[in-house]
């Protein structure tokens, strides 16, 4: 299935990747080829086959809602690229 530049640009926006023009073209060609290979799945009739999302036969895993110490704020913030007191700082969201 041919991929358009628009398809690739749309996926890049959804994925929050600022791809360059050359990269976009490269990925378009490579994804087209990979998806072409993946199209072999259409040889199989999967009507009535349930999907597998997970192989372990477990459903909801519950635990008691017991209070326990959480990570220290300083520890959490120690990797922050930019902070303001106990907050992560980001550029302006609304102009």
């Amino acid at each position, binding site marked *: 299935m041919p991929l358009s530049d628009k398809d690739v640009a749309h996926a890049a926006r959804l*994925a929050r990747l600022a791809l360059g023009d050359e990269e976009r073209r490269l990925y378009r060609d490579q*994804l087209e080829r990979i998806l072409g290979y993946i199209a072999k799945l259409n040889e*199989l009739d999967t009507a009535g086959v349930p*999907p*597998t999302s997970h192989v372990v036969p477990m459903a909801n895993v519950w635990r008691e809602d017991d209070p326990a110490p959480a990570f220290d704020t300083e*520890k959490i913030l120690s990797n922050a*690229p930019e902070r303001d007191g106990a907050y992560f700082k980001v*550029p302006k969201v609304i102009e």
Partner: protein
Amino acid sequence: MSVTWTARNIADHVRAKKLSAQAVLQSFLERQEKWEPKIQSFLVRTRDQALVQARQIDERVTRGEPVGPLAGVPIAIKDNMCVQGLKTTCASKILESFVAPYDATVIRRLREADAVLVGKTNMDEFAMGSSTENSAFQTTRNPWNTDCIPGGSSGGSAAAVAARLAAAALGSDTGGSIRQPAACCGVVGLKPTYGLVSRYGLVAFASSLDQIGPFTWNVGDAALILQVIAGHDPLDSTSVDRPVPHYTNALTGSVKGLRIGLPDEYFVKGLDPEVERAVLESVRVFESLGATVQKISLPHTEYAVAVYYILAPSEASANLARYDGVRYGHRSGNAKNLLEQYELSRQEGFGSEVKRRIMLGTYALSAGYYDAYYLKAQKVRTLIQRDFDSAFKQVDVILTPTAPTPAFRLGEKSGDPLQMYLSDIFTISCNMAGLPGLSMPCGFSSAGLPIGLQLMGRPFEEETVLNAAHSYEQATSWVREPTLS
């Protein structure tokens, strides 16, 4: 001691006061000094912390206090597992400065067992790759031939164990990332059953497939380390709450009556003739030991790579959404607003294979394509799983080659993503079905490169797989040390 000692041997001697943990560590450190510049298996080495750990173990032994089953064993850790206070980079620029604020559960268990952590190993960025060439930082070389890849994505861990720069290592396996490098480097690599080992503190790649496991010098050591890291963890809701068997006791060395299946679909065009010969020779060994061998069919094998390259990138695109430059990791200095900060930080921080997979996964999950790709792949995953269910009604273990060829040359496949993906053709199905899979050496190519055979078992039947592997290992002599020069 010699650095070719097993982890078992080292721990026994340390516990019996016949050898100090510090002396053991010193031998490995000396070897690292000599060969690491050539192999490049570590992203960071933790000499000073390791020396402290080894000294503390020795002090406890001297005082007559009990020490753990891995007392004094130098272990290397793939750099996608959190070790408190150390960088955890996933070999990615986006995490280049990330310092883990806590220990992964497997690390806590290794420490409790008195293993000595000697460093973090190189890998394909975010565990995406089959050659470790996708590392943002360095190229790891195969100790058997430094012009060849060590395999991937846990190539640093495999190379470190093969070159005896560590007595054992941990890796992670999403589609073959423990077993394929183990095969390339001539060591034992075990991917346990999905759910057996906690993933708390493992950087997530594809959550329905990822599993942590050991690289070791021999099968007994794989059992020993699995014993330490296996078991339920309340911090990982996908870890299964069931009793952990005694893996080392399961190594009886007898395979009399064991039923081994050879799937037709794994002995096909594209399989290197030397690999085929070595693997079929191993089948004769198993027969001579009293196992029965029969042909089986896993008819959906040829679809496994296609299923994988929908499911794994889709899950990865969601898991890697967290790298946005807000709370940790690389933040672009060029952004004018928040959206640009996300897009530029990710664009600058991720390497090309990671971006390719994020793009593929995002596309497959995007509106209008979900049913055609993701849902279809999940359904075929069910068919692959059913193949194994019916095969395991006839046989106890399945024997295959681990990889279609021995280690290929550095650069040989790095320009062609699809060719690289196909090097995992024999290891992916095992993850699809969540089975335990082990790779071990079964011979050498005429060029002197190791060849690996893979044994797969029923879910949670690591004992059967390990015992079969151990029996074969006892009857053969493929555990060898590469000649480094």
